[in-house]
């Protein structure tokens, strides 16, 4: 018999069953009814099940992708697969370096353009905009996140590509067009998370800075941005994840040529776009190579999430005062 049951029995010598409802004498505590007990237990398990399904999803996808893609590392070898410069699956050349290169180039350019835009938006929303203006701009920024990526693709294809084509004397399919479209797509992720980080700084900090004779600009760049630094870096990392994983919009504007181009305005391909292009017809080792690429993408996302978690830990230990 457990100790709590003993205790309740000691205080209620008349009650034989501690879980049953008891009217009791005046002054004694009522015990938990059996119905409540069962309901609580059922709900607890229901929520546990929900969480379990989500976790199982991740585990199953990981296992599936891992098992299907593993042979490419075993048979072609990690060096030839990751470092090979020739992606010609029809003739048995499975080097995905041009695709990794493409993903990195497209992502970096998008971050270089998108980050200042997004952090600037966040600073505007949190420090400069009046509540009314913020009430309009913030939902508009959030709406950007809700637009299906194929629409971004259309926009890129029909509006941005011709402009890039005219400026570069080419067709406009290439990394530059991808940068522009991805830069807009990552703005909501980075802007909203950075704004949250800025707004979580206590107002006392702002007041202290103004009371020291700082201007708004000095307060922003000397106190607020440094204070929100880790939150903003988190936001950028998540934006990175969005940029490297984005497929549809990129597919529509980068030209999809799996080789390393001479110029950023020439066609290029990324890991995600190549998977989509090849998956419908790929078979055998070609198909395995696509799963191998998926393992790389999976690894990158996991790495980014791990980085964010590490930084959050760093932040909370800093908040606790070193």
């Amino acid at each position: 018999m457990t100790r709590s049951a003993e205790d309740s029995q000691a205080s209620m010598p008349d009650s034989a069953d501690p879980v049953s409802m008891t009217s009791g004498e005046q002054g004694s505590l009522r015990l938990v009814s059996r119905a409540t007990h069962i309901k609580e237990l059922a709900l607890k398990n229901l929520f546990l099940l929900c969480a379990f399904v989500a976790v199982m999803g991740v585990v199953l996808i990981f296992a599936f992708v891992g098992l299907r893609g593993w042979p490419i590392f075993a048979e072609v070898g990690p060096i030839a697969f990751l470092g090979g410069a020739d992606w010609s699956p029809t003739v048995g050349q499975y080097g995905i370096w041009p695709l990794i290169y493409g993903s990195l180039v497209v992502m970096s350019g998008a971050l270089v353009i998108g980050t200042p835009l997004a952090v600037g938006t966040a600073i505007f929303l949190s420090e400069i905009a009046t509540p009314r203006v913020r009430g309009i701009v913030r939902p508009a920024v959030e709406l950007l996140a809700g637009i299906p990526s194929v629409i971004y693709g259309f926009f890129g294809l029909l509006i941005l590509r011709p402009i890039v084509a005219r400026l570069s004397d080419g067709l406009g399919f290439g990394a530059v067009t991808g940068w522009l479209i991805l830069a807009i797509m990552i703005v909501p992720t980075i802007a909203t998370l950075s704004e949250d980080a800025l707004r979580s700084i206590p107002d006392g900090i702002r007041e202290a800075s103004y009371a020291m004779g700082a201007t708004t600009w000095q307060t922003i760049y000397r106190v607020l941005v440094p204070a929100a630094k880790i939150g903003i870096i988190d936001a950028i990392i998540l934006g990175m994840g969005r940029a490297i994983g984005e497929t549809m919009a990129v597919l529509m504007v980068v030209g999809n040529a799996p080789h390393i181009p001479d110029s950023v305005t020439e066609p290029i391909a990324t890991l995600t776009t190549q998977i989509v292009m090849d998956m419908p017809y790929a078979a055998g080792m070609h198909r395995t190579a696509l799963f191998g690429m998926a393992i790389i993408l999976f690894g990158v996302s996991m790495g980014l999430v791990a980085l964010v978690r590490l930084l959050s830990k760093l932040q909370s230990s800093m908040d606790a005062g070193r």
Partner: protein
Amino acid sequence: MSTDTFSHLSQAADERPDKITVKDLSFHYGDFQALTDINVGISSKAVTAFIGPSGCGKSTFLRCFNRMNDLIPGTRVDGLVTLDDQDIYAPGVDPVDLRRRVGMIFQQPNPFPMSIYDNVAYGPRLHGVKRKAELDEIVERSLERANLWKEVKDILGRNGLSLSGGQQQRLCIARVLAVEPEVMLMDEPCSAIDPTSVQKIEDLMAELTDRITIIIVTHNMQQAARVSEYTAFFLQEVAGEPAVLVEFDRTTNIFTSPKDRRTEDYITGRFG
């Protein structure tokens, strides 16, 4: 009532020149008038306390002296506030420069989330001091004046937030002292910290008046009696109506022989 106030004002002002004078000040938050018809002179290099029940506008009034109310949209100040006979609300006056001369300490200690050193160096850096040796000296001198140097001299690189509440408040005082202000406004500086630290801050205030004019808002009447030379009692008699300055006099007079019945009622704890 207001002529009465004036007679005490001139009486108090006999002894030292006024650092700050306020004439016919009223203050609005949008349509709501928070303060009306305030006239007061703040003696140079002394501690002046503002007391009164919660919501009587003492903090609002305090924030008129460094124009912190400017940051709240929809506020309006009428009347005259002068610092060394200069109108601080005159067109063209730079609130940024004003706030360097009139520093402020808040109820909640609010060090920046950066090192102790950088906290103290913040103001000097804002105003263009770059040389390391000069900053080092200012940091040491300011922490010394805030009676914090001994406790932190070996941990200057540590985050200011890692200090205890009382130490944080003295760090904030050091941060203000680093820009050599002429006036220090203290908005209930001791209500969020432990009693031992309160003692330290009260001692510090007495030391600082060798060079600085201090105005402190406090809920604690014993504190006002202990630290201040002059006391102003504010009261909002009817909710929704603006608050007034009921009585302003030497602290000893306020606490031993108040002229106004309402002051006496408040001092003796009949309300508030």
